[in-house]
């Protein structure tokens, strides 16, 4: 009897341990071919960010999620904001709580930055002066932090408010709401190292802020320790364009060489990068990619919150991919093996993604065409501007702050306002390929980098790398299943097959409400036989079914044009869908490379032209009049 009992006990133990194995096997049963594109964004500020509040935003996390779900909410300047199509997922990412005052003070466009304490902080040049200035700020921080601790039990904190709003709006299958925040760090002098931290599910008691450490490596270590406790998160850098070369540096934060352990730490925590947003697009720069005639796209030339030019090297993702390959060859691993998404960085709780329905991002200071520099000023307004500019320049140039933030350059078009936000744009969206619209599924897609970025429109892109896709794969109904079976999707590693040239499958569809597609491209970065990094852009599919010129690797001209007076568009050709299987003609056996897909629409009116058209003004000649909206896939890395 006792023996039988023991048997039953052992048997049930065996059975239970099988049960324990089950959950790990279930996810693999999901067919990757069933993955769909979901759109969302992971960079939204609400009134809980101190700087957003100062600019008049009164929308909280609740309003931000309602906006994402398709409801209308109001801009601080009074007009309605509503999405053309609701988003599938969103993370509200306010500056880390009460500490949000720190970035506000560094940002010279804010009122609080005029406070003597804040100017002192910015003006400090030596480490000791910096410490002194920082100490002078402590009363303000102290006041607030202390009160928070005292009142934790009776008053909800902003952080709890954010977690509660995300949990309340998360609706598995319909809408995914993530908890997140912005870690607003920098080097010593406005070199933007900002990152959004997004939690898979749940959230820690307190966010890790720049007051604990300005060094992102410490943020990642904190995320590591949370992960060990079962709470997964990723950090997503943004505005590398304004980092003055520090975001994708060849050194660590402290100026040490990059090692394999740095690479592992970074890649565990930063699988993706926000390549496009309101404050410009960070794919590449015309001076970095002189042979890419489409590189001059939504370039934002300044360091964040200053008038100083941001260094190009180390600030753009295409070059980062090349640097990553070089570091890997040098034995340090590839710390820049990241996928791509877009987001808005709105500070009014509502992203502006459409050129013809644009409200910039800050609030009352960039709410109209005149404020943004897209609509001509009257002579009275110009006179008033000139006077206030002279006065403020006189005042500002007397302060050592100028060494840090610079003075506005001479206005290139005096009939128009010229502000940092004149260089901004209506961008961008994140696309993910996920099985279902849940926290688990979408977070897993972000982690495996099966993601793409758009400059606003809802284009879709599929991108696979592999061998033997077959030229007729596009005529087969189960094409996606075959593509997953024969290759890896965007974000993946493709094992090299020596001399055999890899194949890439590109498939793009348009946004029915935006313009038709002009061309699909593949961008390749690699290291040549001499050890130098190289890049090239290949057109792989053209509108109208035209053939790519084998010499120039370009589609024929399709005479696409925009009448800026009416914003009417015309073109000889335009595609609803572009597709190609492409074999790399430049492949050399044994090389390591990164490939990503890019597709361009035919040009349309840019937001600045829409502003001018509606106001009956002539467009600002120093702003681009048209835009070729585009989509970028995450890369596929060819690994030896």
């Amino acid at each position: 009897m006792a023996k039988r009992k023991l048997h039953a006990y052992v048997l049930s133990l065996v059975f239970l341990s099988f049960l324990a194995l089950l959950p790990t096997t279930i996810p693999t049963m999901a067919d990757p071919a069933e993955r769909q594109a979901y759109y969302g964004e992971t960079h939204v500020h609400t009134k809980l960010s101190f700087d957003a509040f100062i600019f008049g935003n009164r929308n909280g996390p609740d309003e931000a999620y309602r906006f994402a779900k398709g409801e209308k909410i109001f801009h601080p300047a009074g007009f309605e904001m509503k999405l053309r199509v609701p988003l599938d997922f969103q993370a509200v990412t306010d500056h880390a709580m009460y500490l949000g005052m720190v970035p506000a003070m560094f940002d010279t466009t804010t009122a609080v930055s005029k406070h003597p304490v804040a100017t002192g902080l910015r003006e400090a040049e030596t480490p000791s002066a910096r410490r002194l200035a920082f100490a002078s700020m402590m009363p303000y921080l102290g006041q607030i932090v202390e009160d928070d601790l005292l009142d934790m039990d009776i008053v909800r904190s902003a952080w709890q408010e954010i977690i509660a709003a995300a949990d309340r709006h998360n609706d598995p299958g319909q809408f995914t709401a993530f908890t997140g925040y912005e870690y607003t760090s920098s080097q010593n002098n406005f070199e933007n190292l900002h990152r959004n931290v997004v939690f898979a599910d749940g959230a820690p008691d307190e966010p890790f802020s720049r007051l604990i450490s300005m060094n992102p490596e410490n943020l990642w270590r904190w995320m590591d320790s949370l992960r060990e406790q079962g709470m997964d998160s990723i950090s997503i850098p943004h505005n590398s364009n304004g980092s003055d070369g520090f975001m994708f540096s060849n050194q660590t934060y402290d100026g040490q060489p990059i090692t394999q352990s740095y690479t592992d730490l970074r890649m565990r925590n930063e699988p993706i990068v926000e390549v496009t947003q309101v404050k410009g697009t960070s794919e590449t720069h015309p001076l970095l990619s002189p042979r890419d005639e489409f590189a001059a796209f939504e370039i934002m030339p300044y360091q964040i919150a200053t008038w100083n030019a941001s260094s190009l090297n180390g600030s753009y993702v295409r070059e980062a991919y090349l640097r990553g390959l070089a570091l890997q060859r040098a034995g340090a691993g590839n710390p820049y093996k990241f996928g791509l998404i877009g987001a808005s960085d709105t500070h009014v709780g509502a992203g502006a993604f459409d050129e013809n329905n644009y409200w910039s991002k800050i609030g009352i200071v960039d709410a109209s065409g005149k404020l943004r520099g897209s609509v001509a000023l009257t002579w009275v307004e110009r006179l008033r501007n000139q006077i206030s500019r002279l006065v403020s320049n006189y005042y500002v140039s007397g302060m050592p702050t100028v060494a840090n933030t610079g003075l506005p350059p001479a206005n290139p078009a005096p009939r128009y306002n010229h502000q940092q936000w004149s260089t901004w744009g209506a961008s961008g969206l994140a696309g993910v390929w996920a099985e279902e619209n849940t926290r688990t599924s979408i977070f897993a897609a972000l982690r495996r980098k099966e993601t793409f970025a758009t400059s606003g429109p809802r284009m879709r892109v599929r991108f696979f790398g592999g061998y033997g896709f077959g030229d007729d794969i596009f005529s087969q109904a189960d094409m996606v299943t075959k593509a997953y079976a024969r290759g890896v999707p965007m974000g993946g590693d493709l094992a090299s097959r020596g001399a055999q040239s890899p194949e890439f499958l590109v498939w793009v569809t348009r946004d029915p409400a935006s313009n038709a597609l002009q061309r699909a491209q593949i961008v390749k970065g690699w290291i040549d036989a001499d050890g130098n990094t190289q890049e090239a852009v290949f057109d792989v599919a053209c509108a109208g079914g035209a053939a790519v010129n084998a010499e120039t690797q370009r589609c024929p001209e399709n005479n696409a044009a925009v009448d800026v007076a009416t914003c009417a568009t015309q073109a000889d050709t335009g595609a609803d869908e572009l597709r190609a299987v492409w074999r790399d003609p430049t492949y050399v056996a044994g090389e390591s490379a990164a490939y990503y897909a890019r597709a361009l629409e035919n040009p349309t009116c840019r937001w600045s032209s829409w502003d001018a058209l509606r106001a009956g003004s002539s467009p600002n000649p120093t702003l681009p009049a048209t835009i070729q909206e585009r989509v970028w896939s995450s890369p596929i890395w060819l690994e030896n």
Partner: protein
Amino acid sequence: MNQAPFWRLLHALVTDRFVWFLAVGLLLFGLDHWRQDRDDYHILVDLPLLEKLAAQWQGQTQRLPDANELDALVEGHVREEILVREARRLSLHKDDVIIRRRLAQKYEFLLADADVPTEPDADALGAFFEANRARYRLPETFSFNHVFFDNENEAGAAVTQLNGDETDWQSLGLPFMLNRTYRKVTGERLAAEMGDAFVVALRGVPEARWSGPVLSVFGAHAVKLEEHNAGGDVALDDVAPRVVRDWQMYQQTAARDKGMNELRAKYKVELAPIDKLP
């Protein structure tokens, strides 16, 4: 007899209770001043404070501070405390936009948290649902399978073939970037993905058999409509969890607004005459 007026005055003062009252008051005032002065320049570092600093550190770094770190925390706290007190003496906290903002935010949280019931009873939920019926109206939805072609002829042929025999619909057509099967997709989303014309055409398609070609912005589709729901009113039972969530949110908003209105009623806001706006 010859007492000088001085002594008379002294006598009068000593016997006057009011003078005694003043004297004791002055003494107490002086003592208190001395005590407060002493306290104002006295910072106590005790165990509860250390625990608080350690807990704050742990909350942000996920571990307890070591001895050196705790020393630094205490030193930071002391410096901070000194600066806070000095700043307050200079009234630096007055009219500080950050501090005003934070105080207002905390009070607003308090208002929203005041006595809010967390679970509605059936009557309250029913009344809330009735008052907000429009919000819960169901959108128009479609459920269908479709096969995609880049020309109408092939799509038409596929419709005939699929209605005529047992062909597996999944084996026909071209690959399609979006779903081949849609379940309860809203008309709004479908229009955004496939174009308005596709949704208009779908409304006129019979259910449960293959139809088409139906045109989208991408091409021609053979469509088998399983279900078309025009949307409209919904029963409370079908959306109860959502109504409860909204009701809870509404309670907080209502409590905040009510509290704000009560406070507002205590204040008289006076508008100074203004000739013209600056």
